[in-house]
């Protein structure tokens, strides 16, 4: 009984410690003073590996989610005789919810796991330690550019995802099922508000980008430096990242669209 209580306390303390360590880690990476010239090149490299390399999966899944939304939405709406509202439905679903959330989930799987594995391997092969030995701060050199790359790419990817998805919905609705293009776009434009819907979606994706990148970097930096430890850390990145995105999405939706 007492032992169970002690274990509960110990695990709670360990979790809290991990959260605190992650916070300090992020803070140190962010305040690391950038040397503009070198860190710009590092940032470009990371933007390429985090953002540009994620483009194919974002484009393809955005297109297919838009196509599916178009088909499913059409079949539901046509029973009420209001298939002109398809544009509204597809656009609001993508811009408010699916764009940021699905992009963040894919981002955790595609870019987050790669970040964790890369940094974990650097730790396992003692590259981070040797960097410290030669007087280069690994937080500044390795972590900060990756964090900023994730912070910048995630909202951009989410916007591309939404746009491609809406085009996919249009392909199904207008070109295949024959909804009149004018009412498709006009209904969409009437009900989608730029500030309330598009900008809130972008804010969501910024928050998700910070969360996923932070979790990925910290799991890599904090992993047990063995091959098994790296695999555990990579799994944790995807699991924790996805859970955090879904949980945060509920909170953000409640704040943005819950009406208080």
């Amino acid at each position, binding site marked *: 009984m007492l032992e169970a209580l002690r274990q509960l306390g110990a695990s709670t303390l360990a979790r809290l410690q991990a959260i605190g360590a992650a916070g300090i880690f992020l803070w140190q990476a962010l305040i690391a003073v950038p040397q503009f010239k070198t860190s710009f*090149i590092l940032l*470009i*490299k990371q*933007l*390429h590996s985090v*953002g*540009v390399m994620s*483009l194919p999966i974002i484009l393809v899944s955005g297109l297919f989610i838009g196509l599916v939304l178009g088909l499913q939405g059409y079949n539901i709406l046509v029973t009420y005789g209001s298939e002109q509202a398809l544009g509204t439905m597809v*656009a609001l679903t993508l*811009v408010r919810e699916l764009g940021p959330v699905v992009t963040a989930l894919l981002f955790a799987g595609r870019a987050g796991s790669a970040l964790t594995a890369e940094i974990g391997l650097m730790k396992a092969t003692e590259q981070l330690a040797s960097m410290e030995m030669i007087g280069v701060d690994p937080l500044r050199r390795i972590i900060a550019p990756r964090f900023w790359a994730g912070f910048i*790419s995630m909202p*951009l*990817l989410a*916007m*591309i995802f*939404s*746009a*491609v998805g*809406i085009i996919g919905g249009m392909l199904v609705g207008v070109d295949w099922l024959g909804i009149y293009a004018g009412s498709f*776009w006009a209904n*969409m*434009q*009437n*009900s*989608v*508000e*730029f500030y309330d*819907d*598009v900008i809130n979606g972008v804010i969501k994706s910024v928050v998700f980008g910070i969360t996923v990148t932070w979790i990925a970097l910290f799991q890599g930096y904090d992993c047990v430096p063995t091959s098994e430890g790296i695999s555990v850390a990579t799994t944790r990145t995807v699991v924790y990242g996805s859970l955090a995105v879904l949980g945060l999405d509920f909170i953000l939706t409640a704040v943005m669209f819950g009406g208080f």
Partner: protein
Amino acid sequence: MRTRSLELAVGAFLVISVAALFFLAIKVSGLSSELSQPSYKVYAHYQNIGGLTVRSKVTMSGVTIGRVAAIELDKKRLNAKVTLEIYNDVNEISTDSVASILTAGLLGEKYIGIVPGADDTFIKNGDEIEQTQSSLVLEDLIGKFLFNKATEDKGSNNAATTPAPAANSQDDF
């Protein structure tokens, strides 16, 4: 050379995402029609705005000529005070025009339709549209219909009771 191609790819990525943002702004949310054109403010009082919201359209003959800027309760007159922003180029709305709250379709969004009057004087910035017509409330309609039906059934004067223009409470002051 390696960094050059990297930079090219990142540049293309940024361009694509900016294009996506423009697409979302212009084509999806119709921002261009929403951008604030120079406009002047006109007030109107209603007994019941029934679902009219800020940024609803203000139309004349179906053409959008402005937006609802604010809705508040007039504490002295105890009714709703609606502020309309009407585009500057629509400056010849006569003072006896009627501003009614209408519904797009059966269950669609509410908007304000202005029917021009015949007066020679035009409303200016800060004026009030005196003649208004409140939103059509379904419960009132049904209530009036039932009331009329009941009086008809009593057989007092069948011919005289035409179905009343329900909820047509002309809010004149």
